[in-house]
């Protein structure tokens, strides 16, 4: 299960502006962007249990929203860039979240991996891919995919 968390629109201005600036530096002009965090939790939990993790452990309910169905951040007609550490790379955030989940649920998930998703409205997937590899992804440690949402 992947739990996706993003900042509510009214609080997301700074992070989005900073992100747009970074991609502009890499030569990509984008109209709008949204950023989210991803937690891939490998566990035999029920949907209610995953909901509990999303709502009471991983999300700040005042400034953030979460979804168990990736891609619900509300930015339409955009590309979604999903970035993860390769499986062979130690994921310290994932490890910490795994410990926290064990504390909350009283049972340990098999693994937790941390990633990020970037929603980008721009005119070219090719240019986006180029900018992503120059700014967001290091091929030595990351894997990523781009899809239209």
């Amino acid at each position, binding site marked *: 299960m992947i739990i996706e968390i993003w900042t509510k629109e009214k609080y997301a201005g700074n992070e989005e502006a900073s992100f747009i600036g970074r991609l502009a530096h890499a030569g990509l002009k984008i109209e709008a962007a949204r950023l989210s965090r991803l937690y891939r939790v490998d566990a035999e939990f029920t949907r209610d249990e995953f909901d509990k993790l999303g709502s009471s452990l991983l999300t700040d309910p005042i400034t953030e929203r979460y979804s168990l169905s990736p891609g619900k951040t509300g930015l339409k007609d955009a590309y979604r860039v999903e970035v993860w550490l390769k499986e062979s*790379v*130690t994921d*310290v955030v994932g490890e910490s979240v795994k410990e926290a989940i064990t504390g909350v649920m009283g049972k340990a998930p098999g693994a937790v991996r941390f990633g990020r998703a970037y929603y980008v409205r721009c005119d070219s997937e090719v240019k986006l891919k180029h900018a992503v590899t*120059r*700014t967001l992804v290091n091929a*030595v*440690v990351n894997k990523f995919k781009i899809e239209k949402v």
Partner: protein
Amino acid sequence: MPTTLSAFNGLDEKELAELDAACGWSLSGLELKEVQRQFRKMGRQPSRGELETIAQTWSEHCKHKTFSGPVSFRDGGKVKKYKNLFKETIVKATKTLNKKWCLSVFTDNAGIVEFGTGGKWGLAFKAETHNHPCAVEPYGGAETGVGGVIRDILGVGLGAKPVLNTDNFCFGRLDTKKKLPRNSHSPERIMRGVVEGVRDYGNRIGIPTASGGIYFDDGYLLNPLVYVGCAGLIPVDKIEKKVLPGDLIVSIGGRTGRDGIHGATFSSANIDEETSASAVQIGHAVNEKKTLDVLMRARDLGLYNAVTDCGAGGFSSAIGELGSDTGARVRLEKAQLKDTRIEPWEIWVSESQERMILSVPEAKLGKLETILNAESCEYCVLGSFPGDGRLLVTHGEEKVVDLPMAFLHGGVPNFEKPAARRKVKISAAPPARPAGLGAVLKDLLAHPNVCSRHSVITQYDHEVQGGTAIKPLQGKYGDGPGDATVICPRAATLDQEDFAGFAVTHGFGPGVGRIDPYQMALHSVDEAVRNLLCVGADVSRTAILDNFCAASPRDPEVMGDLVLAAEGCHDAAMAYGAPFISGKDSFYNQAKDAEGKEYPIPISLLISATAPVRDVRTAITMNFKEAGNPVYLAGVSCRGMGGSVYNDMTYSGNNQVSPLDMEASVKLYAALSKAMKAGCVAAAHDVSQGGLGVTLAEMAFSGGFGAELDLSGAAAEKGLTPLELLFGESPARLVLEVVKEKEAEFLKLVKGRPVAEIGYVSEEPVLEALLGGERFFREDINDLKRCWKKELI
């Protein structure tokens, strides 16, 4: 496993080289032959684990073969031979100076000097580089660099409590036009990753990151330099450590995984497109914090006899070092693993982070386990130190390593490296004077090597622990560029009545090094000492660290630069009475550019310095404080624009480096130190990058005051041009704001020294500089500040 490994003893030179490349050992042909000879003598083939152990133990990173080896230096017709360059320069100065306040030098994970007045505490200080990992993965590389140097402080003596992190970086120009090779990162990206890595690790572990610098030069385009340092407090009675036969080997902290295999040998290799992901290490600050907390509690209860960190080389290096006299019996199946899909030899050499090795008497293991469990810190008992001088490593029934320690630590062959002085064409012609010196000043303030670093500095938590008395950003608006940081380490001493502190700063000048590596070393030491003086530290007790970075030592001119810089270090340390207490070197900082040509870094020497501040309440900051106070320039302005920011911006036609008069500087600083102690100085700022004009501008806009200045009285070398006076970077100069009521006392204390009044602090926010009747510039300080305050990141 490479098929030729099992026939190692019979391989020819070419096959050995191929095997070395396939396994990533970075051993030379001579070293491989020596290993082969030793195993032939033993009458058996080596195991993979043994070869890996030898490769890391003999690596440049662990053995410092270049700096500690023999060198033949050719300078024109003269040849000078060194048996051990490091010992005959750096160590020699420290030994000759023989300062009683040096408590531990060059023997442990960090140098230690006395701290405070009660004789109870020592200050441990260490700086490291993590260049190659940062070139491959900037964020992870920087994080683990910080984690590693913190562990050096945790692993010095029986453990010091870290109270300060330092960070110095060299990147390619962010506006570079050079074409980068495929797979290399842009300087902007490297900088962002490195800054975020240093920030996240330091902030999460709760140690202030409060002293450092950033230098931009296209020489670092493919090989960024990332110097990270740490200072900590240790009780003087906890400095000695000794492994006793029978002690248990206990690993605490992080688990062992496949991350970071071959980090030690990787640092001896040029980076290219084939660089493997396995050299990447990932940091976990929270695990290191747990380790730190366990160590401090266990140390004070005397629960272990020795400790060291698992750095490059992992268990192999740490256990090998601790057991170098006693030998070690290691059972790798006991190790806590991240991943079970790992070969025994990989467990042995893995550089997984946040691990420390303790030498624990069996009777004290129970108490140690109680603390480890209370702090949720993972651990395992890996074996023991038997006292037979033999290193025996097994995994179940499999023998991984079985070697005599004497061969491992004493068997590395070394050979004489040729070194030669690089020829540099020097032009001593008077520099061309541009029109509009005010415009030049603004351009200099906006130059990447001068402009504000606030967008980086403010990402770091430099207040955590509550001891940062003089902060990296200073002045009326909290954004002025400080010369040094002053720490009052009460978080370690727990004495709320004690105001004793220490200052930390750096000196760095690769621009000078390109022209004259010897003068670069002198200038760097001088800059560091001068920075300490600017905050009111007791510079007669300066202790320094050397961190050399260079390209391939196989190039005689690179070795020549190193020899000259090392000689400069020796001479400067002797002149300033400032012993080196620790240091590190990093070679092979070169890579192939987009055209396939070798792209080496310039010789780079970071001098990190510390000196005591007896009472942090009396420390001085750099901004102008009060209108009407007189402004003085201390030191002689000398001819030469060599190595200056101005020359980087617009070549002036003069690349002569101003030589440093060390004897005069020491006398000047001693007099200024007395004046500072007497409370005569309200503000002090060194003249360095950008020259006098930049120093004056920074003091003005950081204080919100202007200044009316006439530089005609300044002490100057004959023939000095206005450009050299304003924007030349001749060393040993600082600008002082003197307390008006104490001006007479100040003049008495500095009598006979080159200290000249050059004007007054003014209420009007305008910086005006004249030379007799000629106006150099008249600029609004807010305009100057706007030029300077750029967002780097």
